[in-house]
């Protein structure tokens, strides 16, 4: 492995002063980053946190002297190891990128080129200047795969990206960044797209690699608990302005800025779990498969009490969304049945009556794609009203306004198009659309996972309030345990298409746990900076 002299730990590697970055939108330039300073010493990890739109990624990329299309580095100084990057010509920057500064993207699945094998992409930067031969670079890449604890490190690189799982790709991407032993790595939300159980392994591998090669890193995320495991220092950004910066432990213990404090206290909803024997929906012994494939659901039994919330948790691929498709009739089960108010629901969507359809509504993860971009909010909410209740004209508009008020928006939204709304507002409109049918059960499929924590909080509060007012039941599909804590009465844990456990929140969340529930719960990052270290030690002993 490389014996390149990387200076002594503690020297300043990156010094960014008074950075201003403009972005082009609505036909003019806006300031996205408004004069932020950032210094990073060799071997140090800086956590950069904030909501989406805070400018974290933009600032992280600026550390490489790179601006995305539609952005420009307007003013300020970016000094990397004595070189000024802002004024440096593109050709020279290309020599630094991938060799001395590397980048790890948010979604490894999208950031690997589907047309080439992993190992060819991993060694692309290191063999570029001809310092090492392809053979040597490949051997080194295999070592890195092994260091990243990828399964079958000798051969995994010779696969194409689509043949490898998301968590493995993310580790392979870290290996790719490490391949040329850079001085600085920018991690841009590298674990956001992963399940909690996978996230633990990826975090451990990344932290290990950074320590082993004494690499400096900027770790961008919106997840405080994750950044607490990775960073020596934390910087909080909001609307392109620095809110606060401090050592990780100090920041966690005594945040000073009011905004930072609000980030800390965000996970504060707690619902007292209740149950009832009056089940509105029962899923009994359901097996289901896509096409003629193997069953992806095996004997699933779930009961949903009236006016309560059942949260279905599990990793991706555990059958959560498939269960929802069976309930809605989109996927007729191979075996078993779904009871609604004690009556069997027809398995096929087309056999269900309008009233049966009305009673079960869905809210989706991506509010963007779940709405027709050419329809106004008034039309989007008005359509189910007309379809299910026959309301038209004035009466329909009055009802739409009433629904808008229920979701805490006003009638000025009637004529707006979806893309004029923020992410949280869009999700609220989707909720209103579901409510327009006056349903008894709403299936919420990962409704908050695309949103920032503060916005999530608002949506969850709204859902709780609506449940109290309208006595509607929720089936809440999520992989986020914190959301489950906040909103559920009962919890169903799923693994590989089977229900591992179902019960009141208080029962599930307390020991003794079945093995899988324990793994799932212990994988949820905590705000304690020693959490990951302790967890790995614990699992190592077990």
């Amino acid at each position, binding site marked *: 492995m490389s014996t390149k002299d990387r200076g002594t730990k503690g020297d300043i590697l990156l010094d960014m002063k008074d950075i201003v970055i403009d972005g082009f939108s609505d036909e003019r330039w806006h300031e996205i980053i408004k004069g932020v300073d950032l210094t990073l010493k060799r071997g140090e990890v800086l956590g950069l946190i904030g909501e989406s739109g805070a400018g974290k990624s933009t600032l992280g*990329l600026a550390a*490489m002297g*790179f601006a*995305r*299309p539609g952005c420009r580095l307007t003013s300020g100084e970016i000094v990397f190891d004595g070189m000024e990057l802002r004024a440096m010509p593109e050709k020279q*920057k*290309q*020599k*630094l*990128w*991938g*060799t001395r500064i*590397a*980048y790890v*993207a948010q*979604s490894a699945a*999208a*950031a*690997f*080129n*589907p*047309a*080439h094998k992993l190992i060819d992409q991993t060694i*692309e*930067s290191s063999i*570029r200047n001809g310092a090492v031969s392809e053979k040597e670079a490949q051997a080194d890449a295999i070592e890195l795969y092994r260091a990243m604890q990828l399964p079958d490190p000798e051969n995994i690189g010779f*696969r*194409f990206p*689509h*043949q490898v799982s998301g968590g493995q790709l993310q580790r392979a991407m870290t290996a*790719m960044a490490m391949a040329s032993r850079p001085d600085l790595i920018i991690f841009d939300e590298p674990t956001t797209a992963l399940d909690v159980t996978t996230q633990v392994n990826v975090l451990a591998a990344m932290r290990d690699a950074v320590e082993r090669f004494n690499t400096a890193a900027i770790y961008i995320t919106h997840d405080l608990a994750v950044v607490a495991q990775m960073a020596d220092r934390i910087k909080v950004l909001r609307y392109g302005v620095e809110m606060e910066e401090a050592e990780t432990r100090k920041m966690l213990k005594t945040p000073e800025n009011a905004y930072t404090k609000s980030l800390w206290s965000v996970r504060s909803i707690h619902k007292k779990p209740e149950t009832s024997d009056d089940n509105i929906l029962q899923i009994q012994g359901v097996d289901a498969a896509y096409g003629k494939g193997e069953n992806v659901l095996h004997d699933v039994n779930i009961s949903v009490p009236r006016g309560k919330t059942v949260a279905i948790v599990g990793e991706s691929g555990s059958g959560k969304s498939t269960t929802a498709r069976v309930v809605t009739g989109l996927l007729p089960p191979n075996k078993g049945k779904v009871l609604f108010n004690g009556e069997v629901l027809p398995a096929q969507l087309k056999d269900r009556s309008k009233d049966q359809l009305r009673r079960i509504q869905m809210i989706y993860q991506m509010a963007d794609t779940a709405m027709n971009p050419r329809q106004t909010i008034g039309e989007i909410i008005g359509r189910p009203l007309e379809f299910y209740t026959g309301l038209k004209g004035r009466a329909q508009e009055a009802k739409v306004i009433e629904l808008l008020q229920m979701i805490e928006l006003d009638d000025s939204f009637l004529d707006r198009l979806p893309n004029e709304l923020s992410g949280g507002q869009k999700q609220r409109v989707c909720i209103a659309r579901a409510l327009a049918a006056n349903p008894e059960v709403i299936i919420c499929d990962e409704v908050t996972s695309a949103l920032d924590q503060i916005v999530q909080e608002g949506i969850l509060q709204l859902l709780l309030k609506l449940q109290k007012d309208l006595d509607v039941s929720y089936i809440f599909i999520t992989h986020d345990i914190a959301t489950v804590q906040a909103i559920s009465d009962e919890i169903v844990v799923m693994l590989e298409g089977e229900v591992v456990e179902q019960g009141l929140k208080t029962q599930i969340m307390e020991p003794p746990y079945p093995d899988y529930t324990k793994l799932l719960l212990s994988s949820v990052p905590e705000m304690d900076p020693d959490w990951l270290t302790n967890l790995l030690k614990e699992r190592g002993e077990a």
Partner: protein
Amino acid sequence: MPAYQRYFGWVAGVLQGDFGYSFSGRAASGVDRSRAVVDLIGPRLNNTLFLASMTALIAVPLSLFLGITTALYRNSVYDRVVNAVTLTTIATPEFFVAYILILFLASLYQVFPSLANIDASMTMGEKIYKSALPSMTLTLVIVAHMMRMTRAAIINLLASPYIEMARLKGVTSTRVILYHALPNAWAPISTVIAFNLAYLVVGVVVVEVVFVYPGVGQLMVDAVRTRDIPVVQACALFFAGTYIMLNLIADIIGIITNPRLLHPR
């Protein structure tokens, strides 16, 4: 005989290479001088395929080159000039392009002959020399389509996260286009190329007429005029076969250039 029996009889003949006999030449005098359809079409087919391949050999590499370079230098002066010129040539009727070329390259400056009446006795060099103007005309007509598709397919991919990743790995912009974007763009590009090659075989009757080129297109138009049904049928079958084969090849290219289809999980 009922129509379906005659039809199956014809299909059975085709499968054995027998396309029947042409109606023309069946004189009322009782002396039958009609010729086999195969003998009529055979040499014409050779000529058509010769012109099509010659044009393809020029047009396909040229449009790929133009498409890739315009994608690389997108929105530059070069990009705009190439786009404007190719759009002009595709927007001009092909017979007009042909007459302009004749005017400049055959009449005012006598570089190439204006008549492309090739026959089997000529050498390869003579054939190429005679076919220069028709093949230039066809090239001008089809380049725009293929070049714009290549450019659009590549530029479409440039917004992908893996292209940004490649740039952030310090990959030069030429390599980004050739190594990272192009391999993912072959499917749409090959579809358009197949479509244009099919056009070269089946749709060039106007150009054949202008240059008096003895191709299948002219033969079919003549046969339609004289209601020579066996010849029309044979031509139609050949044209349809060409379309299907070329599109099939394009689909196969789309599959073998996509690792997701070629290497299952």
